[in-house]
């Protein structure tokens, strides 16, 4: 398993080489990897369908409870098979779709890395491991959305997706840590197997809110749904993969995964049920207003994600079964529809549905598969989408309390709209009068039709024979619900309320389709005021505010004047230290002055006088010289207190300072007084405060000792274990060599930085 996940990243790194070697067939060659993984995951099917869950673990950071542990049960296997299976077609599709793109090699790197992260996310048992993969999917999807990075819109959409999902990711991390603290384990399998429920735990409310923030942003739930349609700036294979079948379902996956442990409370049921249903309706509502085919599909994805969230929230065995079936159905038809939309774009150069028509002769296969997939989207028999939708309506009717009224109404409303969307996507481009296109319409190559063909036909086969899907769907539902729901998938449920709702939605949906152009215009006028308060405005407002605040605090705190930096740093230190003293109620001073020798007093006086002279003199040279007195005075103190290494270093550094000052002294502008008397008074007060505080800290630290000094150990061990008598040096190169190494890198970086600054200034002046 570890090998399987890591192999993807290895192949991803090698992908550009493979691409160069195999040229136009690279898509098929690289698709072999997800195909092999699909077979590998399928080998777990017998065990998982038999009700077992498999756990595989490798040590990673045992001290931190982080390990490479993987959990394979119905839920994770369902996701893994979808990710690997659809991945095969996406990679081979991309090989042809992006054939002419000069960065295709880089695309493979990203899409395969994304696949690996996504598989890791759904299979991970360790919470931290899962979170790492979670963030990796955000980062790779950022790069994929912004793949056409010369396009401003793509970059903006990518950044928006990143900020929303990673912002949610922060909340999720906190939520997961709370979850682990509350449940006492970092392994999902142990948390789920835990005896006591977390419902009564003091951390239950905060951890649920934080985790839901993470999952809602990731799965584009209202009010965070706006980033998903914008993400359509990505190339079509990415949309097909990330924004239909996989990434956006990561949030759904996590809610489903934690449902047995966290679900069943009113908080969980109401939050998920309501937000899910609102998202479902919002998605369908926005879809009907869009004209670009990918936007239409994206909003219908938002609808599907809302549906899944709602079903998890309802929490009945029926809902779990409906969620599992709907998940499978949606991945099949939505993956197919996105790839077909890409085919239309590829074959005609047209993205706007109102400009399409009559393509059935030029693109017969695309038309056929589109119709099949769209029928599944609309939820018509005998497709698997119908099975999923009937279960969903039934589950909504069976929701607890008042939700049993609200949810079916919203479900019916979105079902009507979805029928219209399905007709717009599946019928409009292919039937009616033939339109003129930028390119002469032509059918897509085999690599681009293989995916839609398999996925849409699979939707048909599973609809006709639901028993084929039954084992995996039941196993998934068992993971979501925590117990076997004990239900059979059936195409025909008899004449009942859901069937009536389906018929109604079909009729109403077709009416909307018939009058789509005028409906769209009407809605557009009606929605104009609402768009001003749409959540996306909130996002923009927030980003503007962020920029304003950064600008403001940079102007105040980092204004380019060294004196401001020093003042801010020093006064902050003083405030923190004095605050700490005040909080601790003062400190004891146990310093005795009577054993200070006369020559020590002399040096101290000298240093103090020199420092005062530096602050008041008008001559730079004099200031440098008396700074030297301060430095050498300090070096003398080191020598008196038997620290020869420090003394030598101090003397050398003083000398170096003089050398550097000599080099820059000529270059400085003439000495000017910037300060007026008032600022000078302020400066004196500030420096006194700093000085007094530092002295107080020194005295306080001399009085207390929290830990036994480590110097005893160093003195004792220096000779026997490090073969050195100079403890300072032994500490530097042996005991704490890693610290020194880090400091060496800092030193080198500083040198490079200074060098660059000097050189660039010199060049600026030349030009």
């Amino acid at each position, binding site marked *: 398993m570890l090998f399987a996940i890591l192999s993807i990243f290895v192949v991803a790194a090698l992908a550009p080489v493979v691409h160069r070697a195999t040229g136009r067939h690279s898509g098929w060659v690289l698709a072999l990897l997800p195909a092999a993984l699909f077979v590998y995951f399928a080998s777990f099917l017998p065990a998982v369908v038999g009700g077992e869950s498999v756990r595989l673990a490798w040590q990673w950071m045992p001290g931190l409870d982080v390990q490479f542990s993987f959990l394979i049960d119905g839920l994770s296997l369902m996701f893994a098979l979808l990710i690997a299976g659809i991945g095969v077609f996406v990679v081979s599709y991309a090989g042809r779709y992006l054939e002419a793109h000069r960065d295709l090699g880089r695309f493979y790197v990203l899409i395969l890395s994304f696949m690996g992260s996504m598989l890791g996310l759904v299979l991970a048992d360790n919470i931290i491991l899962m979170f790492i993969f979670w963030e990796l999917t955000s980062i790779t999807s950022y790069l994929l959305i912004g793949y056409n990075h010369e396009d401003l819109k793509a970059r903006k959409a990518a950044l928006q997706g990143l900020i929303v999902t990673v912002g949610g990711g922060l909340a999720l991390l906190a939520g997961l840590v709370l979850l682990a603290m509350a449940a006492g384990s970092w392994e999902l399998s142990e948390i789920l197997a835990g005896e006591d429920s977390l419902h009564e735990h003091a951390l239950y409310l905060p951890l649920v809110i934080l985790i839901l923030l993470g999952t809602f942003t990731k799965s584009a739930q209202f009010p965070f749904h706006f980033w998903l349609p914008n993400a359509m700036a990505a190339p079509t294979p990415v949309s097909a993969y990330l924004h239909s079948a996989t990434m956006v379902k990561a949030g759904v996956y996590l809610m489903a995964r934690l449902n047995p442990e966290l679900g069943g409370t009113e908080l969980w049921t109401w939050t998920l049920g309501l937000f899910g249903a609102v998202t479902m309706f919002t998605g369908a509502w926005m879809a009907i207003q869009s004209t670009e085919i990918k936007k239409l599909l994206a909003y219908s994805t938002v609808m599907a994600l809302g549906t899944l969230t709602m079903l998890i929230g309802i929490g009945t065995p029926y809902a779990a079964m409906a969620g599992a079936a709907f998940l499978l159905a949606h991945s099949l038809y939505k993956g197919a529809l996105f790839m077909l939309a890409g085919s239309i774009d590829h074959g005609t150069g047209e993205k706007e549905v109102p400009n399409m028509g009559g393509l059935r002769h030029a693109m017969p296969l695309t038309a056929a598969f589109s119709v099949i997939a769209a029928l599944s989207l609309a939820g018509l028999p005998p497709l698997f989408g119908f099975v999923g939708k009937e279960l969903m309506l039934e589950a909504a009717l069976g929701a607890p309390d008042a939700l049993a009224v609200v949810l079916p109404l919203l479900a019916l409303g979105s079902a009507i709209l979805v029928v219209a969307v399905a007709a717009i996507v599946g019928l409009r481009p292919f039937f009616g009068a033939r339109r003129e296109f930028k390119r002469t319409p032509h059918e897509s190559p085999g690599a681009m039709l293989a995916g839609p063909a398999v996925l849409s036909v699979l939707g048909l086969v599973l609809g006709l024979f639901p028993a084929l899907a039954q084992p995996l769907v039941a196993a998934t539902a068992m993971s979501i619900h925590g117990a076997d729901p004990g239900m059979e998938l059936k195409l025909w449920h008899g004449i009942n309320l859901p069937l009536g709702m389906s018929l109604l939605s079909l009729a109403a949906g077709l009416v909307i389709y018939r009058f789509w152009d005028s409906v769209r215009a009407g809605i557009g006028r009606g929605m104009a005021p609402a768009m001003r308060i749409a959540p996306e405005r909130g996002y923009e407002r927030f980003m503007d505010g962020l920029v304003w605040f950064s600008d403001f605090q940079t102007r105040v705190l980092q204004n380019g004047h060294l004196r401001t930096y020093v003042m801010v740093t020093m006064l902050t230190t003083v405030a923190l230290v004095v605050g700490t003293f005040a909080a601790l109620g003062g400190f004891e001073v146990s310093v005795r002055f009577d054993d200070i020798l006369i020559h020590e007093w002399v040096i101290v006086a000298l240093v103090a006088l020199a420092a005062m002279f530096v602050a008041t003199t008008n001559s730079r040279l004099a200031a440098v010289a008396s700074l030297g007195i301060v430095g050498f005075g300090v070096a003398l103190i080191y020598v008196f207190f038997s620290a*020869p*290494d420090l003394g*030598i*270093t101090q003397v*050398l*550094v003083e*000398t*170096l300072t003089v*050398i*550097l000052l000599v*080099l*820059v002294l*000529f*270059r400085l502008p003439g000495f000017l007084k910037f300060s007026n008397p008032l600022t000078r008074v302020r400066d004196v007060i500030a420096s006194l405060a700093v000085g007094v505080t530092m002295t107080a800290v020194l005295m306080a630290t001399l009085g207390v000792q929290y830990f036994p000094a480590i110097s005893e150990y160093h003195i004792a061990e220096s000779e026997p274990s*490090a*073969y*050195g*008598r*100079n403890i*300072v*040096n*032994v500490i*530097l*190169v*042996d005991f704490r*060599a*890693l610290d*020194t*190494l880090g400091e*060496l*890198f800092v*030193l*080198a970086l*500083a*040198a*490079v930085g*200074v*060098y660059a600054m*000097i*050189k660039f*200034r*010199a060049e600026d002046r030349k030009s």
Partner: protein
Amino acid sequence: MMAGSLILQTGTRLLLPLLLLFSVFLLLRGHDEPGGGFIAGLVAAMAFALYMFAFDVYKARAILRIDPRNMLGIGLLLATLSGVPALLQGRAFLTSLWWDVEVPLFGELKLSTPLVFDIGVYLVVIGTVLTIVLALAEAEE
């Protein structure tokens, strides 16, 4: 920069080798007596800085032979590599290892990874100081 006085130039010609020798002495004895890579590096860097003042930047670069920026890299590499032998023995990175080598006519020679590490420190310090000092002096012209 103007060339320095004849006295300074003559003195520096004699002082440079002596100071460099002294810096190597400080470097090698550092493990037992006051000294070590940091101090030795400062002494060596200042010897070259003195040479630069006495003559000019170009002569200083010429006598240095190697660009101080490369010295930075070599020093970092040495310091990092000195931690690797311990890794190969399955111990923590930078654990010190010691070998006693018997050299004919010379006696016992103590070789160790901390010594390699200290030479790395030495080179990084020289590299840092001279990178800045030489660049500043060049910007002067």
